[in-house]
């Protein structure tokens, strides 16, 4: 993984994923505030994503690295019309690694092709966001003790949600059973179902999950957005079905944890927060360890 860009979760094999998660656990157990001494990391955020940026910057800072970059493309040379290529070529001179967030799809792969230093994709439009997937996996591993043979519920917008697609691809290494719970209009695309068929993995589709929730090891919630529906009436009909409430957790497994990429709107009722099964805020903390692991591994320090 040394010196290799991370553009898509599919860039990593099962073994490489496990290696990153191992390093993340090491950082969680034993902080290494000097590891990135003398290293400069660029964070280029062409669109505001405060949560992701702070997580990366915290990861670098806690390892003792320095950060250069911009958080808003309107205040930089980008607003003067500089191409992504020119910005990346220039910034490659100033840093050991580039973290890129960009609204256009494919921007991270392109950046990795023109950059002299490795690029970590912190989200390229609706395309890929591999560090989110790795932190999801770390959260699952940490709470379940294993990634193997779990029953994972993906809930909400399964059609457009890139986080659930990447999570599915990554979890397909671990003999996962999937339950897809979504409105008809937002079902998991066929290409992913075909992929699971090819691997011989089990998946089930539902439009409601109150009946089956007791089987879940992990519930991964996503937001169902009104603008995804061609018929607004359809949205009104289904909007409350995909909201998780405390009362629904009554007969669930002891090991169940609820994940969410955040920010949530109303798909997890605030009364769920008091349950020890609510894990989404710790999940965000795990992002720091996971991103430390990714950076240290790419820089060849782990």
């Amino acid at each position, binding site marked *: 993984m040394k010196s290799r860009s991370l553009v898509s979760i599919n860039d990593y094999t099962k073994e490489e994923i496990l290696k990153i998660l191992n390093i993340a656990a090491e950082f969680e157990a034993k902080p290494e505030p000097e590891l990135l001494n003398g290293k400069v990391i660029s964070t280029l955020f062409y669109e505001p994503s405060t949560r992701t940026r702070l997580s990366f910057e915290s990861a670098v800072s806690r390892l003792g690295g320095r950060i250069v970059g911009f958080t808003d493309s309107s205040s930089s040379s980008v607003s003067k019309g500089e191409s992504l*290529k020119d910005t990346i070529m220039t910034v490659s001179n100033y840093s050991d690694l580039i973290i890129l967030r960009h609204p*256009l*799809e*494919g*921007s991270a*792969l*392109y950046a990795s092709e023109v950059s002299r230093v490795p690029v970590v994709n912190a989200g*390229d439009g*609706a395309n890929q966001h591999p560090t989110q997937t790795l932190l999801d996996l770390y959260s699952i591993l940490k709470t379940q003790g294993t990634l193997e043979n779990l029953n994972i519920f993906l809930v909400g917008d399964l059609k457009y949600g890139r986080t659930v697609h990447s999570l599915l691809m990554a979890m397909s290494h671990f003999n996962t059973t999937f339950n897809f719970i979504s409105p008809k209009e937002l079902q998991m695309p066929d290409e992913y179902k075909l992929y699971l068929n090819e691997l011989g993995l089990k998946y089930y589709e539902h439009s409601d999950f109150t009946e089956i929730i007791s089987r879940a090891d992990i519930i991964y919630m996503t937001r169902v957005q009104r603008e995804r529906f061609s018929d607004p009436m359809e949205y009104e009909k289904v909007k409350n079905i995909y909201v998780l409430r405390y009362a629904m957790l009554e007969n669930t497994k002891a090991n169940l944890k609820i994940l969410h990429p955040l920010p949530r709107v109303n798909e997890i009722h605030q009364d769920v927060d008091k349950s020890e099964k609510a894990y989404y805020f710790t999940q965000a903390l795990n992002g720091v360890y996971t991103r430390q692991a990714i950076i240290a591994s790419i820089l060849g320090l782990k």
Partner: protein
Amino acid sequence: MRDVKQLSVSGIKNGTVIDHIPAKNLFKVISILGLEKFDNRITFGTNLESKKLGRKAIIKVAGKTFVDDDVNRIALVAPEAKLNIINNYKVVEKYNVEVPKEIIGIARCVNPKCITNHEQIITRFTVIPGNEIALKCRYCEKITDQEHLNIR
């Protein structure tokens, strides 16, 4: 023998005849092959009757044979095209174009949010096997289908 006679009418001694091009895509084929930059004698006919295509076009390029990779790129707009290699007024070889596995620098990605539509990037697509042309963008991973195919 009839074939040879018809072709010899145009007077190509050596070269290539590309037949069964859909008439509406003639100029796309010319542009993909870069024929506008050729010095060789080129004749073409279009809106010719064709049982298969309705109206077809034909291109005759004197003194030139194409490399497979070059000519297969026209499969995107002329999947039925046939090439006749002419030597001394005779057809010495015939073959059909084949859709290549990868398309580099010809097609445009259908996704308006794709980086290739915003920066000067040579597009790259893998061709998804099937009857219809479907191209998967190397960059944004979205599929461009036949209906939305746009040649640069």
